[in-house]
């Protein structure tokens, strides 16, 4: 999958996360994380994002994460949506998800 534009998913509601994905050329995966639980869960949030990107074979992307205390499942779902949008993919293979 290739990032061709900016894709966003999520909201700034409590317990949600807003994730924006855009291309950064070939600079690897860059994560800008702002979280209300950064101290307690920062490491876990980064790990979740990195694992999800790896599973989608994304090696280069700038990921902006504004977290309001989302659970891992919500973070993964928002990230996958944002990546699909940033890759310009409209037909989603739901079975594969």
């Amino acid at each position, binding site marked *: 999958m290739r990032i061709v534009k900016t894709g966003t998913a999520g909201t700034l509601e409590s317990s949600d996360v807003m994730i924006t994905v855009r291309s950064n050329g070939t600079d690897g995966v860059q994560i800008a994380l702002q979280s*209300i639980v950064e101290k*307690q*869960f920062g490491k*876990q949030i980064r790990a979740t994002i990195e694992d999800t990107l790896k599973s989608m074979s994304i090696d280069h992307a700038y990921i902006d994460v504004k977290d309001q*205390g989302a659970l891992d499942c919500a973070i993964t779902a928002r990230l996958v949506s944002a990546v699909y949008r940033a890759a310009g993919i409209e037909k989603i293979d739901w079975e594969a998800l």
Partner: protein
Amino acid sequence: MPDNPVNHEIPDEILSAFDRKLFSGAYSNTPHIRIDKGNRSLPRLNKIVDTIEQVVIKTGLSDGMTISFHHHFRGGDKVINMVMDVISHMGIKNLTLAASSLTTVHSPLVGHIKSGTISRICTSGIRGELADEISAGLMDHPILIHSHGGRARAIETGKIKIDVAFLGVPTCDVYGNANGYTGASACGSLGYAKVDAHFARKVVLITDTIAEYPNTPFSIHQDQVDYIVVVDQVGDPKGISSGATRLTKNPRDILIGSLAAKVIACSGYFEDGFSLQTGSGGASLVTTKFLREYMEQQNIRANWALGGITAQMVKLHEDGLIKRLLDVQSFDQEAIRSIGENRYHSEIDASYYANPLNKGCAVNKINVVVLSALEIDTEFNVNVLTGSDGVLRGASGGHSDTAIGSGLSIVVAPLIRGRSATVVDQIKTVITPGSTIDVLVTDRGIAVNPRRPQVAEQLRRCKLPVIPISELKEKAQKLAGVPEPIIFEKKIVAVVEYRDGTILDVVRQVQA
């Protein structure tokens, strides 16, 4: 010879036998009496001082003294910042600030702490920037956190000696009769301020509305008041209260509230004539709403309700479902209206409410209380002061007072807030000991303190989802994950006093 208006002889033995001094003129021993007679309706006989600066001078406030404020204007309070700016400008240092509570609008106090004007703080609660700064080690002396009842006890027993109380009041007359339910900045009950007015060495009222004498019925009375200052505005009505505390639409709060109401209805405490206190939090308000349905179905009326009075309580009162309201703090516009209008909606002071050492406080008579929690551990100890990041952001309030006083104390809380578990192995700060908490109601199940097996049995019989609190903790952990531990410095930033005056816990500085 005797100075007696009719020249009767008064022997010295009489004076010594009665331990009295001889009459020395009608005006000489009563400085407040006006010597020149005249038209008494003219506001000449008054206590009004032109400015806050002048009143500070008159009170004799000096370095190292203790000043007090109340928090009935909540987020709309203008008095604390206004008075502190003046005191700070006058160069007085090293004061102890004894406020009944502090809110997010009090962040300018950070500057007064840095300048040395304030060196110690006692309060029930603390939030916002001020709380963040104190958690980060702003002050040399830890702040003291007390409960509402604990504060009343400390003031009555002289543990907190207030030199000057600066009490904002919505209206007062020229002689110092003040009430809270009239005027543009109406806040309802003045329950916390009443204690200060009674015990402070000097009492200054600050108002934006001078009422006709006598401003009856009054909460603070003329015999307690030294000076009055009139200012433009004591509070911002929008911050003092919402119109009517609105019921939440959050489905999780509605679920918790409905479960809590069922817990009360099944607990064995739900009988005609019972009494209750509920808070102003989302789930707590919903509890009141659902409880109404049980009351109507089963034809049960409450004799009285206590607390923090809200629109929900007023509605129940006016509809005849709660006979009497005892009000130490009025949370919304409806409660403020009601305390002015309803004969049996009575104002009570903080000592009557919850002072553990007086001859009988109201919390001791309450049947059921519904409380909140930021965190609760598997021993039912509750934290309502520090967040999951260890930073000060709450208030002790009447939590520990009502928990121990009530027949049944119920904590309502979502199992997870954001990503932070509410039920945990170790809470950051203890405000209320677990031995005084009976039931925990969450959106994922109900836990009953093992010391109340009969209550657990009753709830099970009603098919309520009662599970061990350790299971709730595990559920929360599974959903949220295990947080990295918060790292604290050695420095203590706050000391938690239990309502009886003993030290229950300390809060340490959070590592940056």
